[in-house]
C-alpha cells in the first residue's frame, strides 16, 4: 500500500512538471549582472526579462545592477573573481554586461569565454568594436549591446554659434568664463571623454593613442598639452558628475558641457532637461564606447545567456528598445535596423549629430594604458 502511495506521488509530480513545462522541463534562473546607470538595469528588468520569459517559460531572469561607470564593471569583475577563486564548477552568474575596460580586465584574468562564433547577430555588427576594445583584441569574447557617444550640449538661447572644434571651444570659453562646465575625471566618464578629445586634438599621435602600440615615447608632448588644459580650466566650471553637468545645463548655470548622448535624450524625454538644448561633436571628435555582453567562463546557463544575447541583438529588438525607448545608437548596422523604425524616431536620434558626423567624429576611448596615463597626467599637471 505504502509503495503504491509513493509511486502515485512520483507519477503525479512528474505529470505536474511535464504539463507545466511543455517545452523544456528544466527550471532555469538566468542571472545577469549589469554595469551602468539605472536605465541599464531597467532595460533588462522591465523590457527584456518579460520578453525573454515569454519565449522561454522555464526561465526566470534575475537582474543585478552594479552601478555606473567603470566602477560598475569593477564590481562585476570582483564577483567573477570570487566565483573563480571558489573553485566551483558552475558559476552563479550567467551573463554580464560590462564596459570596455571591464571586458579587458575580464579577459586578462581569464573570467569570460569565447562565444561569438555561435552568435548570428555577430554578422550584423559593422563597427569594429566587437573586435577591438581599448586597443585589446577582444574578438570572440564580446558582442556590443549598443554604442554610446559623448558630445557637447549647448543652450541655443545663449550660444548662437556652437564651436565646431576644440579650437573654437577654447576661444569661446575665454570669451565666456565659467559658462562651460565639465566634471573633471574623477566623477564620471563624460569628463574623461572630454579630456580624451582634448588629447586627440593636441597630441602629435592621436591614432597611436587610440589604437596602439603602447610606448611612453608617444607621451613626450603631454606635459605641455595638460598645461594648456590647466589654463583652459581656469575659465571653466567644474561640475559634480555626469548628472551634475546635465543639472547645471538645465538650470542655466552653464551654457555648454560634455554629456552622454543617450542620457541627454532620455532626460529630455522624461522632462528633466530643457528641450531646446542641442548637441554637437566638435572636431577632431570625442570618444564613445559600447557596452559589451560577455559570458562568464563557467556560467551555469551559458546556453540561455547566448539565446538572450541573440534576442536583444536582433534588428527588431534593437529598433524597438535600444533606439526607440533608450536613445542609444544601435550595436548593429543602421541599415539592418531602419526597416523596423518610424522615420521620426531615426530623425530624433540623428537630429543634431548626423550619421556622417558619428562616423567622422565618433572616436574610441584611448588604449587602456594611455587612458590610465592620461588620468594620472591630469591629476599631476591639471589638478595640482
Amino acid at each position, binding site marked *: 500500500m505504502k509503495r503504491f502511495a509513493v509511486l502515485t506521488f512520483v507519477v503525479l509530480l512528474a505529470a505536474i512538471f511535464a504539463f507545466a513545462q511543455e517545452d523544456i522541463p528544466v527550471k532555469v534562473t538566468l542571472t545577469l549582472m549589469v554595469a551602468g546607470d539605472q536605465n541599464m538595469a531597467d532595460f533588462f528588468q522591465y523590457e527584456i526579462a518579460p520578453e525573454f520569459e515569454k519565449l522561454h517559460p522555464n526561465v526566470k531572469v534575475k537582474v543585478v545592477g552594479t552601478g555606473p*561607470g*567603470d*566602477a560598475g564593471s*569593477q564590481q562585476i*569583475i570582483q564577483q567573477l573573481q570570487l566565483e573563480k577563486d571558489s573553485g566551483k564548477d558552475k558559476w552563479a552568474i550567467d551573463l554580464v554586461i560590462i564596459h570596455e575596460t571591464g571586458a579587458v*580586465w575580464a579577459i586578462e584574468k581569464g573570467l569570460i569565454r569565447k562565444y561569438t562564433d555561435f552568435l548570428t547577430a555577430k554578422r550584423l555588427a559593422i563597427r569594429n568594436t566587437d573586435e577591438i576594445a581599448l586597443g585589446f583584441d577582444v574578438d570572440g569574447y564580446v558582442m556590443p549591446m549598443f554604442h554610446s557617444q559623448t558630445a557637447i550640449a549647448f543652450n541655443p538661447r545663449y550660444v548662437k554659434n556652437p564651436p565646431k572644434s576644440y579650437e573654437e571651444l577654447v576661444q569661446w570659453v575665454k570669451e565666456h568664463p565659467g559658462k562651460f562646465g565639465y*566634471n*573633471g*575625471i*574623477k*566623477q564620471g566618464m563624460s569628463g574623461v571623454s572630454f579630456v580624451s578629445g582634448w588629447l586627440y586634438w593636441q597630441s602629435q599621435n592621436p591614432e597611436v593613442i587610440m589604437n596602439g602600440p603602447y610606448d611612453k615615447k608617444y607621451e613626450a608632448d603631454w606635459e605641455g598639452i595638460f598645461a594648456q588644459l590647466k589654463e583652459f580650466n581656469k575659465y571653466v*566650471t*567644474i*561640475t*559634480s*558628475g555626469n548628472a*551634475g553637468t546635465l*543639472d*547645471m545645463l538645465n*538650470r*542655466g*548655470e552653464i551654457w555648454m558641457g560634455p554629456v552622454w548622448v543617450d542620457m541627454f535624450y532620455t532626460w529630455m524625454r522624461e522632462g528633466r532637461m530643457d528641450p531646446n538644448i542641442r548637441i554637437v561633436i566638435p572636431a577632431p571628435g570625442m570618444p564613445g564606447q559600447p557596452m559589451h555582453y560577455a559570458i562568464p567562463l563557467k556560467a551555469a546557463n551559458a546556453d540561455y545567456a547566448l539565446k538572450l544575447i541573440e534576442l536583444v541583438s536582433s534588428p527588431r529588438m534593437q529598433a524597438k528598445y535600444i533606439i526607440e525607448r533608450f536613445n542609444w545608437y544601435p550595436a548593429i548596422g543602421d541599415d539592418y535596423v531602419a526597416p523596423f523604425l518610424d522615420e521620426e524616431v531615426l530623425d530624433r536620434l540623428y537630429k543634431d549629430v548626423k550619421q556622417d558626423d558619428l562616423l567622422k567624429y565618433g572616436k574610441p576611448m584611448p588604449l587602456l594604458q594611455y587612458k*590610465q596615463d592620461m*588620468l*594620472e597626467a591630469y*591629476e*599631476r599637471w591639471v*589638478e*595640482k
Partner: protein
Amino acid sequence: MQQKLRSNFTGFLFILPALAVLACLYVFPLLRAIWISFLDKSGNISLANYQKVFEFYLRDILYSVAISGLTVVTALVISVVIASYLRFKEWKFLDYMYRLPLFIPFLIVGHAMRIFLAPHGTMNSLLTRIFMVEELPGLSTSWVGLLWSFTWIMTPFATLIVLGAFKALDSSYVEAAQNLGASKLKIVFSILIPLSRSSIMVAMILTFVRTISSLTIPIMVGPNSPTVITVDMMFRVNYFNDWGVANGLGVVSYLIVMVLAIYYLRFMISERGGIKG
C-alpha cells in the same frame, strides 16, 4: 585553581563570538590592507604605492584633514551653544529639531545640499529675489558647501554627547555659581565645559573620524579638486583597478585617526589616572 581556570574559560567562550566578528571583519581586513599597500603591481614588496600616494594625493590628504578639522570646530561650537541653551531652558521644539538630521541618510543629504546650494539652486533663488540681484555664486562646488553639509550632518551627534554630559553634571555646581551671581555665559565657560571636557573630547574624535571616512557627501558636494581621501581611493580602484595605492591611502587615513586615538588615550590617562567609560 581548576575552578578559576574553568570560569575564565567560560568567560572567554562568552566573548568569543564578539572577538571572532572583530577578528574577521576588522583585524583581518586591516592587516590585509596594510599588506596589500606594500605590494607593487607584480606582487613584490615595495614602497611604490606610498610614493604615488604622496606624489599625487598629499594635497588631498591635507585637504581631508583640514575639512574634517573645520567640521569638528563648527559642529562643536554649534553643539555647545545648543546644549548650553537646552541645559538651562526647556524648549521641546529645539530638542526635537536638532536631532532631525540624525535620521536622514547621507545620500539624501548630499543630493539635497547639491540642489539647495547650487548657483541657481533653492537658496540662491530665494536670496536673489530678496536682495534683488541678478546672480549669486553657488556653494555646492566649493569647500564651504562641503563644510556646510558635513556640519549639518555631524552636529546632532555631537550635541547628543555634549548635552548628555551637561545634563549629567551635578546641578549643585551650577546652582552654587548662580547663587554667587555668575552669569549663564560664565557658567558655561567656567563650569559646564571644563567639567565635560572628556565627553567633548569624545564628541570631537567621533566627529572627526566620521567626517574623514565619509564618501557619499564629498562625491556629491564640494570641489572636484582638491578632493578627499575616500574619493581618491574610489578613483584608484574604479579607474585603475589599483588596490595598492587605494590601500596605501587607507593606511594613511588609519594613521591620521590613530594619532587622534593615541592623543585621546593619553588625555584620558592624565585626566583620570586610567581609562574609564
